[in-house]
């Protein structure tokens, strides 16, 4: 498909001897939200961490296969993972703002790394990203407070703003709401739907209702294999695979 921003072919991943992903094929359309569901330990987190080559930073971990980002394989030998991570942003399960940096410095950390130092540009981007992350109104008066002084939900949105500031075409979210309260969760879900018009989102969740609420397509992982992948509405109503049906009806996991 021409408008697939990302396509994965035969992706395998290992932790030492243990194979965590078994030959995954999956395409992601531009400006969509893809949800990855499955019981814990099924490889869904490992999968997203392969998409920005963060998986290999774990000691002993390795991966093989193809991940085509805008047509270019990010696992080619001459590709620098640092540049890939600039294009594929990531938000983690636990909010992880840099504790030594202020709210403002957290948001522009990526820009500063890229060498953009002009105050006016930084300010503009910081405000825009914080607005995108629906956090601006709450923090505009405490931009120079420590990033870790915010509440858990605010910290997570700060991390989203930090990832958005470098304008990545793809944003990976690894269970971004599992550590948050329901209100913060709702805010972030709303945000994800909003962001779809600008970027492509791939989101791991263990909450099936969440997947059903916000995603266009859903992938179901089990024991390192991709069991089923399709439109969210059909996957949840008429699953093709028996295992998918068992999982979404709560038979296991």
């Amino acid at each position, binding site marked *: 498909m021409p408008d697939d921003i990302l396509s994965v072919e035969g992706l395998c991943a290992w932790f030492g001897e243990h194979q965590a992903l078994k030959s995954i094929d999956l395409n992601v359309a531009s400006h969509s939200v893809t949800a990855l569901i499955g019981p814990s330990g099924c490889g869904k987190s490992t999968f997203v961490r392969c998409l920005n080559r963060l998986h290999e930073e774990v000691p002993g971990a390795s991966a093989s296969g193809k991940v085509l980002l805008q047509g270019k394989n990010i696992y080619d030998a001459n590709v*620098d993972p*640092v*540049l890939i991570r*600039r294009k594929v942003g990531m938000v983690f399960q636990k909010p992880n703002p840099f504790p030594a940096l202020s709210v403002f410095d957290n948001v522009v950390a990526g*820009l500063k*790394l*890229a*060498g*953009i130092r002009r105050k006016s*540009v930084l300010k*503009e*981007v910081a405000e825009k990203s914080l607005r995108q992350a629906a956090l601006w109104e709450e923090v505009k008066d405490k931009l120079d407070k420590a990033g870790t002084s915010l509440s858990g939900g605010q910290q997570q949105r700060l991390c989203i703003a930090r990832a958005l500031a*470098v*304008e990545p075409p793809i944003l990976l979210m690894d269970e971004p709401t599992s550590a948050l309260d329901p209100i913060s969760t709702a805010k972030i879900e709303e945000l994800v739907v909003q962001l779809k018009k600008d970027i492509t989102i791939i989101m791991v969740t263990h909450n099936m209702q969440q997947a059903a609420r916000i995603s266009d397509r859903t992938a179901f992982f089990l024991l390192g294999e991709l069991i089923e992948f399709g439109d969210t509405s059909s996957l949840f109503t008429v699953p093709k695979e028996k295992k998918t049906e068992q999982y979404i009806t709560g038979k296991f996991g």
Partner: protein
Amino acid sequence: MSSLRGQIRDFTHLRYKRRKLLSLFISFLLSLSALAAASCLISVFGYVIWKGLPHVNLDFLLSLPKPVGETGGGMFNAFLGTLLMVFLGSVVGIPWGILTGVYLSEYGRGKFAFLVRFSADMLASVPSIVVGLFIYVLIVKPMRGFSALAGAASLALIMIPIIARNTEELLKLVPNHLREAGLALGIPRWKVILRIVLRGSLGGITTGVMLAIARVAGETAPLLFTALNNRFLNLNPTQPMASLPVQIYTYAIAPFDEWNQQAWAGAFVLVIFVFVLNLGTRWLVKPTALGTRD
């Protein structure tokens, strides 16, 4: 928006090479610092073997020092002195250290325990020469003379905090349900502590004790004016006694080649002793020892 993205891209391409080079360069520096430290160790170790080993022979190991000018002679009195004083120090230091560790781990909550913990850490960081001074005032002066006992006391004083803190750390690793299991069987607490908690971490505690022994076996400063030195074989703990580190020191700063050679030979013996204790514990009681170190 597209302008910003363009800007980022320009900057990124412009600067990325430099950032990458900087990262590589610093990684190189970090590797270099590791290499520097490693090569210093190898240099010290290498010289001790190169200069010391050729002079280690039976005569050196089993005979007493000879006066200046006469060839031959050895450090038998110093070996024996070190062994004896380390033994005497351990007799006091090991139980004291372990029981303090037991107190800290099993009953150690609240302000008093904090005070004990803090004191142990402070005692561990008191310069060993100051420990020597303290023992001089405490023991040598009232006894009106340098003695092996005073030397052993200062070694014990250095051992106690090391063993105490190590024991505490190890006992804290013993899961609570083991204690509760013992208590639920109606075993009194003191027996639970001795039979279950202490026995369970015996390997680790032994390691800590051996490391403490290795540490004090090489101590020189606290012996200089407690045990002093002795050119003769002495087994009476109320008299001055030779020790290997002090003998190495004396021979190293003396202007005689013969003595300097013996200092290297003594250094070889001391280094082997210390390293065998260090490495031995590491490989003998691996599970607990490594579990707590890393």
